[in-house]
């Protein structure tokens, strides 16, 4: 299982797959919408973790990022097989985004919770407009 290998590589073992049913539903729902609409699971998981599971905003973002690891592996396995991946473009973007992700994560670790909520809310409204107009 990719996630098991991933967690070993990161220095710990998965204790078990048992989770709060609410979290199972959020993970599963995030995955379904991600596969269904080609959007990231985070855009669904973060709001549900905050508004339904009552996570703090910062923790919800961190949990969402971790959950995206196995979800994107499944996505690559599903779509990558289609042979449409442009590897050199992906490499160029990844070089930048690996650096950017570390800057973003450091900001996430210290940003004010309310400011984070507003930033994420505005981001969601922007995405909604994009989805609504480019459908």
């Amino acid at each position, binding site marked *: *299982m990719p996630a098991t290998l991933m*967690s070993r590589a990161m220095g710990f073992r998965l*204790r078990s797959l048992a*989770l709060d049913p609410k*979290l*199972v539903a959020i993970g599963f729902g*995030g*995955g*379904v919408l991600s*596969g269904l*609409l080609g959007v990231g699971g*985070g855009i669904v*998981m973060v*709001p549900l973790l*905050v508004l339904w599971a009552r996570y703090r905003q910062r*923790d*919800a973002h*961190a*949990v*969402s*990022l*971790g959950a*995206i690891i*196995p*979800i*994107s592996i*499944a996505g690559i396995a*599903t*779509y990558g097989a*289609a042979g*449409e*991946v*442009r590897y050199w473009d*992906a490499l*160029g*973007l990844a*070089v*930048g*985004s*690996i650096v*950017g*992700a*570390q*800057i*973003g994560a450091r*900001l*996430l*670790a210290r940003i004010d919770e*309310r400011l984070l*909520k*507003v930033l*994420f*809310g505005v981001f*969601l*409204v922007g*995405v*909604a*407009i*994009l989805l609504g107009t480019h*459908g």
Partner: protein
Amino acid sequence: MTGPPLYVALISFGVLAGVTSGLLGVGGGTVIVPFLTLAVGLSQHAAEATSLLVILPTAIAASFVLRHRGVGDLGLALRLGLYGAVGSVLGALLALALPASTLRIVFAIFVGLVGLRLTRDGLSRSRT
């Protein structure tokens, strides 16, 4: 765009997508896919497939930093993501059987309302 200018653009946009991703806890596909279709000229399908390959290392890099800083719970996140992985395969299969435009509009409305709610919560003085 081709050659060196393309790679400068890709890497620069990658940094921007990475910061957004790490801070907002999303994969980055939402910003990477439009960039690849509009600026690089890939087809929608190629852009989505390519963005997945960028999302994975981005999420790993951000998760390493967050784990080091003690934010969140990576073990729990990975378990949550395993259920998500099952869901995403089902979602992809479902996508082939349902009218995509309707789903997209419904989803856009859902995301928009949630965005407004979070913005309001964040701006209100009495809540955290």
